[in-house]
């Protein structure tokens, strides 16, 4: 093989390509669903590992496929550990908070509740960071994996700050917080000896987000006004048709933000000599979600079992990479291998990326 693998390599038109087949995946998804059901959902971790092994090993980067080396067992243990911790915490809150309200009065209970919400933001941040770290550490390409030596604790604390800042100005700072947190996460990650560098700003996503924000605010006002005129004296009256239009409009506006966000995130993130582009346009996202909704309706929800496949195919299908990789310089990662897998992500039920 070549000393230097360059992207896009000559034999393939694209540096990154997904070669999976839906029929193969349906077989995996169906048996996964069956086993998950028959094990009171315990098999979920193994199902995930199986699904990822398929998706990863059918994703070619330059001249070799990715490999998912994570196991169901480690994911299950990670999940169990975190779920028990969160379960105990939840139980303490469920029993303790009403008791606190009775004993110390609602003001103290409210303060404690605020504290719990902030801790929740911290956990959410921690979960995303550690989930990303785990995925990179279990992804190998040509035998080399990624990872991070950072535990994500500081990231979790920063996440509280960014989310609070976004919250206090009516959500308008959300794209800024999102881009900052993206950089915070990725700048702590590496692949082999190469650090990721992320310099995303909200310049590219602000506009689309404001559009979404205005459609949400103006839309709610207009909806409220129309309902007020149609049903004077009864502000609680709802109109399913109008609400549907409202949600559709807000959803379409949000998708514009998603489009801009993915494009900017890929463009401003690099590793070593590699640069990325995400080429999905607004219409591609529209098509993807329209298909998702359509499939869900036609199959009465069964399509959710192939969602991971469709999503991966969509993301990989629109991801491009440019640059060269020096295979001799790309040596094994020295980062620690995390043992909690993505327990936090799993237990808090947060999606990928």
């Amino acid at each position: 093989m070549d000393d230097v693998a360059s992207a896009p390599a000559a034999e393939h038109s694209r540096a990154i390509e997904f070669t999976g087949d839906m029929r193969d995946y349906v077989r995996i998804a169906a048996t996964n669903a069956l086993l998950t059901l028959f094990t009171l959902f315990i098999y979920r971790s193994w199902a995930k590992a199986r699904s990822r092994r398929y998706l990863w090993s059918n994703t070619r980067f330059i001249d070799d496929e990715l490999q998912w080396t994570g196991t169901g067992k480690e994911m299950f243990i990670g999940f169990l550990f975190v779920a028990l911790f969160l379960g105990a915490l939840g139980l303490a809150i469920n029993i303790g908070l009403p008791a606190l309200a009775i004993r110390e009065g609602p003001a103290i209970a409210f303060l404690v509740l605020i504290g719990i919400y902030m801790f929740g933001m911290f956990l959410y941040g921690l979960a995303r960071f550690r989930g990303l770290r785990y995925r990179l550490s279990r992804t190998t390409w040509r035998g080399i994996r990624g990872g991070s030596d950072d535990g994500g604790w500081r990231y979790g604390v920063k996440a509280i700050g960014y989310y609070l800042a976004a919250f206090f100005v009516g959500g308008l700072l959300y794209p800024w917080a999102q881009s900052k947190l993206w950089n915070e996460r990725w700048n702590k990650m590496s692949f082999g000896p190469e650090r990721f560098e992320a310099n995303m700003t909200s310049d590219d996503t602000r506009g689309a987000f404001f559009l979404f924000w205005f459609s949400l605010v103006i839309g709610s006002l207009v909806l409220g006004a129309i309902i007020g005129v149609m049903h004077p004296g009864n502000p609680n009256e709802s109109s399913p048709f109008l609400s549907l239009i409202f949600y559709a409009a807000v959803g379409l506006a949000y998708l514009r933000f998603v489009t801009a966000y993915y494009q900017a995130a890929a463009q401003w993130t690099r590793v070593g000599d590699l640069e990325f582009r995400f080429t999905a346009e607004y219409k591609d996202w529209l098509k993807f979600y329209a298909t998702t909704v359509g499939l869900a309706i036609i199959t009465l929800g069964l399509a959710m079992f192939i969602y991971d496949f469709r999503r991966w195919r969509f993301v990989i299908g629109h991801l491009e990479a440019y640059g060269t990789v020096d295979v001799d310089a790309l040596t094994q990662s020295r980062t620690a291998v995390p043992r909690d897998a993505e327990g936090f992500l799993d237990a808090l039920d947060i999606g990928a990326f």
Partner: protein
Amino acid sequence: MRKDSWTRWISARSDPVPQKGSLFDGVSARAHEVLVEGIDASLRLHSAGWSDEVPISKLRSLARDAKRLRVGRSDVDGWSLVLDQPVADDLLALLPAEQRYGRWIDRIGLLPALGVLGAVTASVVIIGYTAPQWIAPHVPFSWERRLGSATVGDFGPRRCRGAQGEEALNALVEKVAPGAAKGPDGIRIAALDVPIFNAAALPGGYIVVLKPAITETNPDALAGVIAHEVAHVRRRHVTKALIRELGIGALIRLFAGDVGANAEQLLDLSYSRADEAQADADAMDMLRRANIDPRPTAALFRRLATQSPDFSAEFLQSHPLSSTRARGFAATFDPKAHYIPVLSGAQANALSKICLK
């Protein structure tokens, strides 16, 4: 058919030809061209001036499709060997089988595994459903009391503290269940100034009666309600609910998320219905033994059944249908019995003012 076996025989007899493969050593991303041979229990890899032997037991299957086959090593991070298909049969026989569902399931096969797992799952659900029933009576009451006093304490600032009213409330408990409020494990009852019609048994033998249940009823009807809650405590229904919540409830919520929570609620509801019916039957017994007229209790449930849903929703959610219960209590009325009011006029008067400061 015959020709096929003939060729296989030939290939088995011929000397094994080393297969070409690409080796990633896990040190750098460079691929090394190697020749691969299976020798006894190990894989021999060699190229010009270099060779290595890897025990078969250290190999694990990473991926396999029509074009390529990839194995890794359990002891070396990132090590992988890629062989182009078709791989010679003798070499293939040495390599670890493709992992599909998981090690254990692969070994016994998918269908037998589903059978075993289905049986285990069914037993877990059945045990989880019935276990609280027989564990609850063996939980030391002192444990439960500690939990109760940690959470409820002295019932907090909302507690109605009219001294004579509290005396009357305790007298009421003593009437329906003589001795129940005495001793270190005795029932602790309190009225709370909360504007909802309800009464509840809490962990550790604590019973709370909310204000409307006192002010909008008469003492005889309240006696029926309290007898019902006392029965919950004595039958360890509260303990049972706690165990169920900690056991199968936690299990379902842990793994199944929202779907499971709904299923669990249904499970919970059917449980409490059976317990409620038993508590009612006990309450009827207690009223009869204490010579308390069951008709006011029946009337209370009749009233709750016809009240606007807002008024009784809270009460109905956790209790059987009020009209059915009303009939049950009414049926125990004995025209020949000499019923006596549960509280004296003075006690009843003090009780009605329990929440006045």
